[in-house]
């Protein structure tokens, strides 16, 4: 029984929840988030905003000085992202390809300097990591502070949709959310269209005006998936802003939208291969 189901089974929790919830489970990205959850998100933002001054510089220093990660054309990437946000300050879903466990941190660092996130905390993307990766209590605390909304990949649809509902809420407020459309690190060494995270399609449908920033991220030495990029890695980053649309209805439209995002990432991967060949 997962935690959501445990709460439902507890009569006291049910009664308490009913004071705040205009409706009972299930939550979904298409429906407004109940007050209780909005307050919880607000609390997470407040605590995260204050603690970011401690953890964000440390994480950046580890990536820069310990792991010695670098980017190709970083200024250009950041300028482009700043322009994208200036042109479209509305709901933004960031969808990178997925090869390592720290992709979301590297993408966030590539898109803007850390100092930007300290002064404009709303600009730091929320992300949706796999819950089982945070069994360690220290990691769980860090996850909370770093704008993570953990999701259980094999968990119930209800619990997954509750996380998607929170993502939709913050997107409506104009805060970006980072979700990997492949759902997990690719086992194929390239963009994997077999393992789709249809939550991407649900979010695009649920949030009016949503645009998708596809991010192709690849280290020079990243031939396959790994826990971390190798030390001293140099990253290629490419950005593409799209506004996918669907002709179908219901769940078919959800699938169309997710497929559109993955196909854009595939196209960007082809560009990367050409770029790589030219570099020699």
């Amino acid at each position, binding site marked *: 029984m997962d935690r959501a189901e445990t709460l439902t089974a507890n009569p006291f929790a049910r009664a308490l929840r009913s004071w705040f919830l205009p409706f009972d489970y299930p939550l979904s990205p*298409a429906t407004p988030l109940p007050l209780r959850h909005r307050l919880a998100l607000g609390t997470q933002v407040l605590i995260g905003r204050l603690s970011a001054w401690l953890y964000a510089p440390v994480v950046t220093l580890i990536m820069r000085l310990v792991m010695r990660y670098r980017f190709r054309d970083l200024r250009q990437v950041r300028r482009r992202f700043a322009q994208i946000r200036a042109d479209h300050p509305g709901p933004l879903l960031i969808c990178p390809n997925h090869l390592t466990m720290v992709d979301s941190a590297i993408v966030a660092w590539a898109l803007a300097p850390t100092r930007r996130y300290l002064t404009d905390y709303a600009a730091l993307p929320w992300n949706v990591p796999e819950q089982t990766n945070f069994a360690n209590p220290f990691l769980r605390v860090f996850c909370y502070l770093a704008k993570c909304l953990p999701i259980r990949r094999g968990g119930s649809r209800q619990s997954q949709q509750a996380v998607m509902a929170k993502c939709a809420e913050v997107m409506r407020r104009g805060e970006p959310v980072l979700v990997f459309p492949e759902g997990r690190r690719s086992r194929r060494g390239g963009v994997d269209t077999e393992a789709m995270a249809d939550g991407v399609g649900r979010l695009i449908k649920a949030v009016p005006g949503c645009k998708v920033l596809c991010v192709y991220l690849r280290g020079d030495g990243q031939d396959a998936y790994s826990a971390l990029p190798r030390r001293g890695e140099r990253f290629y980053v490419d950005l593409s802003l799209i506004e996918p649309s669907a002709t179908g209805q219901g*769940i078919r439209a959800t699938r169309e939208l997710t497929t559109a995002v993955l196909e854009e990432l595939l196209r960007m991967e082809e560009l990367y291969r050409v770029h790589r060949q030219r570099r020699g």
Partner: protein
Amino acid sequence: MDQQQAFHEVVGILTPYAKNKAALESVGPNTNILKDLQVNSARLVDIILGIEDRFEIEVADEEADEVVTVGDAVKLILAKKH
């Protein structure tokens, strides 16, 4: 379209995605698609799309969320067809 027919068709659609083939042998209306048949949750949408195509129905996202057991899928199909 009766319940038995729908049930067999749904099992047919689920079969390629079920990792627990032993559970398929004793599948019933209360068989949990994710937990008992060990279907990858990422494949649930494929299953629902298969049901849409086979039965010529349209399933909304929220309706798909309600499909937890094989019986839920059958109920959804019968509700859509009648």
